[in-house]
């Protein structure tokens, strides 16, 4: 049975929610005057959710976060900060490839953003048809750039080169950012040492089994507390936990400092993912700061079919180890061995073992096995992909 995804504000919680006959559960984002506070899951009985139950669950899950946010609002803290620290100018880049429907929805969401003078850029990566271009032409403020070499990282590098402003916010085409998304992301760049900011990514819908398993098995959400990462607080090799490329912003000047995205990594190449977390690792190693900002909410449409999900989970496994392989080969990061072996023996293997024997395990056996297979193949895929990039350059 599917799960309903709801976005509710504490200021106007309904007395009762009805009309959810198709669902057995509800996944609810709770906000206070627009600020995300907590996520709750409630059962749906006969298509209804009781208002009292909803309110109780919201206050409990909100905890200190709720009280503190309320206090800050009563102190007019946000308005003061906004007046004191101006919002820097930025460029939004959507890297897309042959998904004109998704691209349209994403662009529609982006045109609803608060206007801080941002530039909008679509990087059409190696398109097989003209559809995306036609979609983009219906949005007058958006600039269209065609990049013919396939690869998400190639597209990201192109976006960094094309962007008019120093700060570039990236979103995937299958995501729909919130109205306050950009402002929440880029405000963190008032600290000159912050080179990258990631946001909170939530599922747009949980209609199929595949989508539910995606959310359960490899959620993008990293909680509701703002966190700041630097080399002293996190091993650069464990940067995957900071966030993902679906919802991030970075400085163009990072290119000069740590080099561009590795074009042998991520979607469109044999390594399939890992380009974002590998960039995070390099930034951390160079002494930069990365911030996780939960106020920057974006809604991601997870893969609907089981086949797509399997492909993606396998890709994640490949990407993680491909990125680590790169860190070792190019950056000489020895600590990656310790981390990789720990993750393998302490997390992945036990999870797989559990999922094979316990039915209620959070890990699906099929997915766990796939990911593990991906991990083992990762280093070889990276080497092959690197060779392919070299050949192309020659």
């Amino acid at each position, binding site marked *: 049975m599917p799960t309903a995804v709801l976005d509710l504000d504490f200021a106007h919680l309904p007395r009762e929610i009805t009309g959810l006959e198709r669902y057995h559960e509800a996944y609810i984002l709770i906000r206070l005057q627009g600020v995300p506070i907590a996520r709750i899951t409630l059962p749906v009985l006969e298509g209804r959710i009781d208002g009292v139950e909803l309110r*109780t669950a919201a206050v409990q899950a909100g905890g200190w976060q709720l009280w503190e946010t309320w*206090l800050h609002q009563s102190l007019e803290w946000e308005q003061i900060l906004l007046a*004191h620290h101006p919002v820097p100018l930025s460029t939004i880049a959507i890297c897309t490839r042959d998904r004109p429907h998704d691209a349209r929805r994403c662009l529609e969401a982006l045109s609803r953003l608060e206007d801080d003078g941002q530039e909008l850029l679509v990087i059409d990566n190696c398109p097989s048809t003209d559809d995306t271009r036609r979609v983009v032409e219906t949005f007058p403020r958006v600039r269209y750039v065609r990049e013919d070499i396939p690869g998400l990282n190639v597209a990201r590098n192109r976006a960094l080169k094309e962007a008019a402003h120093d700060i570039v916010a990236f979103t995937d085409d299958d995501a729909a950012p919130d109205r306050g998304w950009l402002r929440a992301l880029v405000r963190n760049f008032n600290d000159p*040492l912050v080179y990258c900011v990631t946001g909170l990514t939530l599922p747009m819908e949980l209609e199929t089994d595949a989508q539910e398993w995606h959310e359960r098995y490899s959620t993008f959400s990293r909680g509701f507390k703002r966190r700041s990462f630097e080399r002293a607080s996190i091993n650069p090799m464990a940067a995957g936990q900071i966030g993902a490329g679906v919802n991030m912003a970075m400085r163009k000047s990072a290119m000069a400092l740590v080099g561009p995205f590795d074009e042998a990594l991520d979607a469109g190449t044999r390594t399939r993912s890992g380009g974002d977390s590998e960039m995070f690792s390099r930034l951390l190693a*160079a002494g930069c700061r990365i911030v996780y900002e939960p106020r920057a909410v974006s809604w991601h449409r997870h893969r609907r079919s089981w086949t797509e999900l399997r492909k993606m989970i396998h890709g994640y496994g490949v990407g993680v180890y491909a990125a680590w392989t790169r860190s070792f080969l190019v950056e000489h990061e020895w600590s990656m061995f310790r981390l990789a072996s720990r993750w393998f023996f302490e997390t992945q293997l036990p999870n797989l073992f559990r999922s094979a024997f316990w039915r209620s395990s959070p890990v699906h056996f099929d997915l766990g096995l796939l990911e593990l297979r991906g991990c083992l193949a990762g280093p070889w895929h990276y080497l092959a992909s690197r060779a392919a990039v070299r050949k192309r350059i020659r």
Partner: protein
Amino acid sequence: MALSRFTRGRPQENTIVDCDAPAISIVIPTRNRCGSLRRTLDALQTQTISSSAMEVLVVLDACTDDTPRMLEHYKTNFSLRSLALDPPHKGPATARNLGARSARGPLLLFLDDDVVPDTRLVQAHIDAHTATPNCVVLGPYLPVLQRNADCFRVLQQTWWNDKFLSLQRYGHRFSYTDVLSGNLSIQTRRFAEVGGFDGGFPAAHEDYELGLRLIQAGVRIIVARNATARHHEHEHMTIDRSFERARLEGRADVLLARRHASVVHTLLFVVLHEQSAVPHRIIRSLAYDRPSLGDTLAKLLGSLLPLLDGCRFRTSFHRLYKALRYYWYLRGAAQETGSAAAVTVLLENNRLRSQQQHEIDLDLRKGLTEAEAEMDHERPEAARLWYGRQFIGRIPFVAGSERLRSEHLRPILASSLSWSYLMCRVMEIAGQSPPARSTEDLFQSLAADETSHAGKIN
């Protein structure tokens, strides 16, 4: 060597109002960093402000390199004068004082020779003085991030970055340790009134000392966000030099303690003196009682640092580096005091003095705006915060910090006092009838109370 453009020794006091006086005099002390100085001068040529509005005074602190020759042939569009101090070198404090004495402009801007100003810097300083008369203006000089930075470099640049970040935060309460002299401007008259820098200081913390006197005199400190510059510290700061610097800081802090008893307890050597953990005791006993053994050990361990860095053992590097820095700092303090016992005596003497504090009571129930207005009116050193008859907490007296202003209130309520302030607000609601029965009710009535309150204001 032709020294026609040089004025040697002490220049005469210039008391006559000069009609062609520049709007601002920029003083740059320098010592054997010819290339670096040249880059700073080059950057001053491209300022947005007209070059006739500024004069530049370079003070050579016993330079033995090519600097005098470079200055002689340097082509500028602004008025450039050089002053020289005779060997042995006297340190930046004396050099800046000399420059300040021969300045013709009503404003003084001190720049370090490794600080490269952005194009708007000089204008931003002048604007800040126009907006707030009689203040000290600090400009952020941010580290130039390095590709492939090692552990040491990352530590340095993070420190500088976070320092300027905290100064720019809304409601920052300025302390004497915020007064950094690499990009600082002040009225020439004001600078002379407080007596300039203390020339008795080594090349460290002379700016803190000046900052303390300025804060005590009630001078406002402002950060001009646009007065940015790039700090090329990485070119000359190495691990060994940073230890040497730590030693100088140790010496300087003892001098600070002697000159200004009020801030003794904020000084690092006093804080370290009161630490009882074993590693602290070892470091202390080596620095004060067995310096020859300590020096050998510290040098030996210091040579391990690059090795730890090379193997990417970052945490071990940080720990060892911190310990060694403490050691060299205490070595400096020990040189100046003589022994650990002398520090104890210093503290004992200081304990007898009691500090008169100006502390006020503020009732936040009357409204935040009223409380803020009262803070601006009273400018107290500390405050007791109340919500009706409920005590929220204190904004404590902090030695060497500026008096409280209205901007200080909300940041404290939003962070360190947030819990108790919230509790006071909740208690008030909870005391109303009918009493709230659950957390949810409480939150609801609190939110409702706020909306009705906001309605009243509007």
